[in-house]
């Protein structure tokens, strides 16, 4: 293993230059191009699932990888906004775009409240506080009537998107979800590569120093947390459009664990890491679905292996190899 970065948390990503000279941007354009033609080769519902989880994991990574705070409660935003979106579309008759908006708004508001509480503690305590608040939200969802209890909200209708795009066809929905995913991803990319993102990284690397330089660290953390929650909410709402279902699974702590797992496997603190991690884990779950409880065991083994053997994740290790090769 190489020497860990100062906080020992995430490897410092390569500094990105201007847009044109950045291999990451070229890679991104290639990836979007591939995604445009992919549904002709691969089952579109599977791809949409990957994109929803990739956005979820990327939103989570904004906290863990770039701010250094491990949130163990992101299921609260993912599943909570799924309920709101499903309720808005199914019961209140919203069109899908307003359903998404309702879901994202809800996630942002809850993110603000939870963020205010959680950023009072750091490190390990931050993880425990977010986990506990998410569990409280889970019990809330279990008890209130509008979530449908154990059944969840099923058969959420797919109304026309913007009133014109017929999303009952999987192919049409695919491009809507792709647009949602790419815009969410661009928001994260923009946030990371901005002065705001630089301050977040400074907080991750050395919080007392960032404070001594005059940054209001807590405000930065709170904004990052709300942004991360809102994007996790966008992912959860988009998932409702795809599967027409919001259920307790989406708010359970295991869902928060999956976001952690995807980010860890792909590489925390890298922009493409969570995307790769989400693709790997969703593919694995698809192939292993018949194995029942073994999926849990295998996920646990991947966790242990990732922490013990490749802490930088798949993308992080690749970047490290590329950097060594350049030298």
């Amino acid at each position, binding site marked *: 293993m190489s020497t860990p970065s100062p906080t020992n948390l995430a490897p410092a990503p390569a500094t990105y230059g201007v847009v044109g000279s950045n291999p990451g941007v070229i890679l991104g354009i290639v990836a979007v191009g591939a995604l445009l033609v992919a549904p002709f080769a691969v089952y579109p519902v599977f791809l949409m699932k990957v994109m929803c989880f990739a956005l979820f994991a990327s939103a989570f990574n904004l906290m863990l990888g770039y701010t250094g705070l*491990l949130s163990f409660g992101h299921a609260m935003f993912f599943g909570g906004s799924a309920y709101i979106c499903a309720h808005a579309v199914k019961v209140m008759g919203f069109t899908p775009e307003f359903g998404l908006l309702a879901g994202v708004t809800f996630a942002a508001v809850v993110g603000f409240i939870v963020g205010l*509480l959680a950023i009072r503690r750091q490190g390990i305590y931050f993880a425990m*506080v977010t986990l*506990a608040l998410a*569990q409280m939200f889970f019990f809330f969802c279990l*008890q209130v009537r509008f979530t449908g209890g154990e059944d969840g909200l099923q058969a959420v209708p797919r109304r026309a998107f913007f009133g014109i795009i017929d999303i009952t066809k999987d192919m049409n929905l695919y491009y809507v979800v792709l647009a949602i995913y790419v815009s969410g991803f661009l928001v994260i990319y923009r946030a990371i590569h901005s002065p705001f993102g630089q301050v977040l990284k400074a907080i991750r690397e050395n919080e007392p120093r960032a404070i001594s330089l005059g940054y209001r660290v807590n405000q930065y953390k709170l904004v990052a947390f709300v942004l991360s929650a809102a994007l996790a909410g966008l992912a959860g709402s988009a998932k409702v459009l795809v599967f027409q279902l919001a259920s307790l699974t989406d708010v359970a702590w295991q869902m928060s664990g999956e976001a952690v797992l995807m980010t860890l496997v792909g590489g925390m603190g890298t922009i493409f890491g969570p995307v790769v991690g989400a693709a790997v884990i969703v593919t694995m779950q698809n192939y292993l679905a018949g194995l029942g*409880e073994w999926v849990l065991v295998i996920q646990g083994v991947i966790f242990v292996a990732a922490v013990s053997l490749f802490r930088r994740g798949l993308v992080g290790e690749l970047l490290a190899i590329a950097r060594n090769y350049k030298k």
Partner: protein
Amino acid sequence: MFELLGIPPQALFGQLLLGLINGAFYAMLSLGLAVIFGLLNVINFTHGAQYMMGAFGAWMLLNYAGIPFWGALVLSPIIVAIIGMVIERTLLKRLYHLDHLYGLLLTFGLALILEGLFRRQYGSSGLPYNNPLPGGTNLGFMFLPNYRAFVVVASLVVCIATWYVIERTKLGSYLRAATERPDLVQAFGIDVPRMITLTYGFGVGLAALAGVLAAPAYQVSPTMGSNLIIVVFAVVVIGGMGSIMGAILTGFGLGIVEGLTKVFYPEASSTVIFVIMAIVLMVKPAGLFGTAK
């Protein structure tokens, strides 16, 4: 007979006793977490799974080896502690120089593995474990089941003994010193790595002991640990991990509060501890017994 706010005393004291038992488990688990975190700087996410293993250990010893509850009460924690020490030596040890979060992630993965294995083998529904102390005493105002009284007394004894060993004996002073400055303690000729392993084993054993005690009180089920550990995390945040006595008092206190909530406002009983956590975070972020850092 008297009534309190329209609640019959049997219901009130019955729930108080249940709350006290839950509190006993919270106290033993958060005590173990605090001791482990103090020396290893690892939040042991596997703690819930190890509690579950303690209960299953008792069940297996009874059903496969015919060893009754009282034997399991000693054997099961020792077996689980040994498994824990093997995990510490092989996996956890390699993470001490890294950020605390990696320890949390590793132990989270271990918890998934253990829970998955037990669910695979025994299914998600619970297995019954016979009450070793049937019967009870009528105290006049309530009926006190013998086993429940035993759980409360046993866990109180264990908690206070742990407090005594850590705060009042020479062995405990080594432990406290190593928590502050492991390098210096090592320089005085004390084998700190072995101490770390034994401490982890002790904390894990405490969790398993709580599990054995829980087996006759609840059902033995693979998910019993993961549900409990999140509440225990909230207990730890409320109490702060700075003090041993703090962990014990917070554990028992919150168990009682939860029991009372079940009597007066049952809908909130599953969330009351989390609400208290939120309030404590607003008023005293370091926790009731924690020191600001």
